[in-house]
């Protein structure tokens, strides 16, 4: 019973942490646009918590560069399990158009495991919503802690 409830709640209440690696803002504003009335992802119980310790899903936009890769790892580490990482936009997927620039490490999966890739430049709000939904699968199947 409890187990079911928690699993159901996990997909009903994914809290986001958005981290902008070195995005051009294009993807950022599309993530933000998801929160606004027109897309209103709070319909799915999603809120942007802005704090890794409260987050279930890490949305990463932009390329990973030498300086922010440490930040990214830090944030990922501070998130409690279960957690999912969603990379948004071609920058976050592979480095995009910048992938050959000298300060660019590449896509997010170079530093932390990525669960969902949302292509686009920038990815559309609808695509981001689809991506989050895909990410929920992982949260649902993650095991429960040994003791509550």
């Amino acid at each position, binding site marked *: 019973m409890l187990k079911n409830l928690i699993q159901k709640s996990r997909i009903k209440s994914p809290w986001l942490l958005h*981290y902008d690696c070195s995005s051009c803002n294009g993807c950022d504003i599309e993530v933000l646009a998801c929160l606004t009335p027109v897309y209103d992802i709070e319909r799915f119980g999603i809120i942007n918590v802005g*704090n*890794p*310790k409260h987050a279930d899903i890490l949305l990463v936009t932009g390329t990973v560069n030498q300086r922010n890769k*440490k*930040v*990214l790892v*830090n*944030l990922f*580490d*501070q998130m*409690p399990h279960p957690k999912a990482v969603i990379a948004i936009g071609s920058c976050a997927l592979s480095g995009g158009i910048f992938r050959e620039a000298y300060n660019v490490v590449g896509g997010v999966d170079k530093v932390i495991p990525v669960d969902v890739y949302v292509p686009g430049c920038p990815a559309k709000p609808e695509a981001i919503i689809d991506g989050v939904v895909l990410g929920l699968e992982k949260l649902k199947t993650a095991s429960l802690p040994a*003791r509550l």
Partner: protein
Amino acid sequence: MMTNTLTSTLVLLPFLAAGCCYVLRSNRVRSLVVLVTGFLLIISAVGLIPLTPFTLSAGNLLGVRVHDLVMVADFLLLFLILYFGFKHRSLVVKILSLLQILLVAYLEFFLIKEVPATGTIYCDSLALIMVLIVSVVGSIICFQAIPYMRNHEAHLRLDKSRQHRFFLVMILFLGAMNGLVLSNDLLFFYFFFEVTTLCSFLLIAHDHTATAIQNAVRALWMNSLGGAAFIVGLTGLYYQSGHLDLQLIIINASPGARVFLLSLALLCLAAFTKSAQFPFQSWLLGAMVAPTPVSALLHSSTMVKVGVYLVLRLAPAIHGTFLSQCVAIFGAFTFLAAAALAVGQSNGKKVLAYSTISNLGLIFACAGLNTPQSVTAGILLIVFHAFIKALLFLCVGTIEQHIASRDIEDMRGVYATMPLTALITVMGVIMMIMPPFGVLLSKWMAMEAAARSFYLILIITLGSALTVMYWARWAGTLMSDPFAGRFKPERQPLLTWGALGALSAGAAVLSLAAPWIYTRMIAPAMSGTYLLPYRASGGILENAAGVFAVLPLSVVAAVGFILSIWAVKRAAGARIVAPYLSGIQVTEPGMFKGPMNRLVKAEAKNYYLSSIFGEHKLTAWVNLGAGVLLILMLGGTL
């Protein structure tokens, strides 16, 4: 007979033991003397419980009338103070002590015709409560002082121990306090009053640093001012009633008479100085330079209580007068102002000092409010405050010896190094601000009592909120550390653990026993003068207006506490993560990688709102306010 023996043990034994401490300069022997005296005091005080109330008359001691002995001692004492006035070149002390000498002489040689044969000593429940506090809390503090002073002198690297002087004064002080609260003859009272002043002076100056001496002199002159007011008040009272028998004065109060009221007002003034109310707070703050056991004993749990004790005693005599209202407002004002000042402090001992002033203010407010409930609240506050404040001072002292600082910010995360002491300190803080513990019980009574007087309740509510603020902050600071390892109590001398344990357990048990204290000790003290304010049954205090379920709440709190501890144990298995630092934390705890790739420590250490609550902002205004209130109070009696 029994009462005789016990009373003289309580008053005289310390004088004897003090002498021993001074003469026998071996650490072992001194410790033994202190321990034995302490235990004897505790036993005697407890022994008095079934015997109260009683009256005793001082007869002769070694063939001399005790009254004359006291008179001689009085003069000696005043001359000693005068001497200190000269030595430290303090004009005020000189003038005030001379004034007192003259007045005492006038009173003794010209006014007093016959010395009363009876009623020198009177012990009712109120006095008994004070005796218990002095003997029990005082002795415990003296016990803890033994290891404390050893460390203290080691820290200071003294080549010659000065502990014999220290314990001389400490122990002597215990006797003086007992004598004071048991005196019914106001001249005796006055004598002991001055002894405590002197003890306080000596102890503040004990470390002999320039500041210590300066602060001690300040304490001396302020308290001498109180002494002078006292003796003037006594003269007035004698004029008015022809005797100095406290009980008789209370019973035959003539609040209509100006001289009478003015004299009482002067006694209140003396009480305010002794209790370091505004604008006399500075001596108590300065007194914090003294070794911490001194602060615990004199400057929080006992000596400063003399003032509130006196006013609570006199309360029935001023019932319904303007003076009473003034005392109430003055007390409430101090409560609020001192709480506000405490918020702006990061020096731990100063916070404790302001908090003491603040609580004393609340007791004054209760006394001035002069209803059965408020007086009950006042008495309960004396008890609980004495225990918990002593505990907190000892805790700070213990912590201070480890980290060599008294600053709250330096105590940040002290849990990591001294978990048990930190826990006891936090317990102390919790007992100061949380139900079902005694301080809050008393505050509840005080508030319900004050509810009918809207300016008082306004001030008191604001003050309480400020109180919560500085205590909660402190408790949190002590726990503030990324530490999460195993709980392993640190090493401390047995006497320290004993003292901390006894005080904290004592405070907790007394809180639980509050209804019993009420029925057994307070109700009898009230009956006669006041209607009984509460019904106590099944550990619940109740009257028509309110109910405080002490026992049930305590049970619930205990269960909650156990559950929370269980939660902590389970959380010990949780993953420990670094505090949130915007994602740039590094492995060194509390550090982040800042501009220029440098490591920077993230901290939040100067949040004391000094732009609002700082001493430099408030003190002048507060003193002004208090001065105006005092003038109003004195002037109002005319």
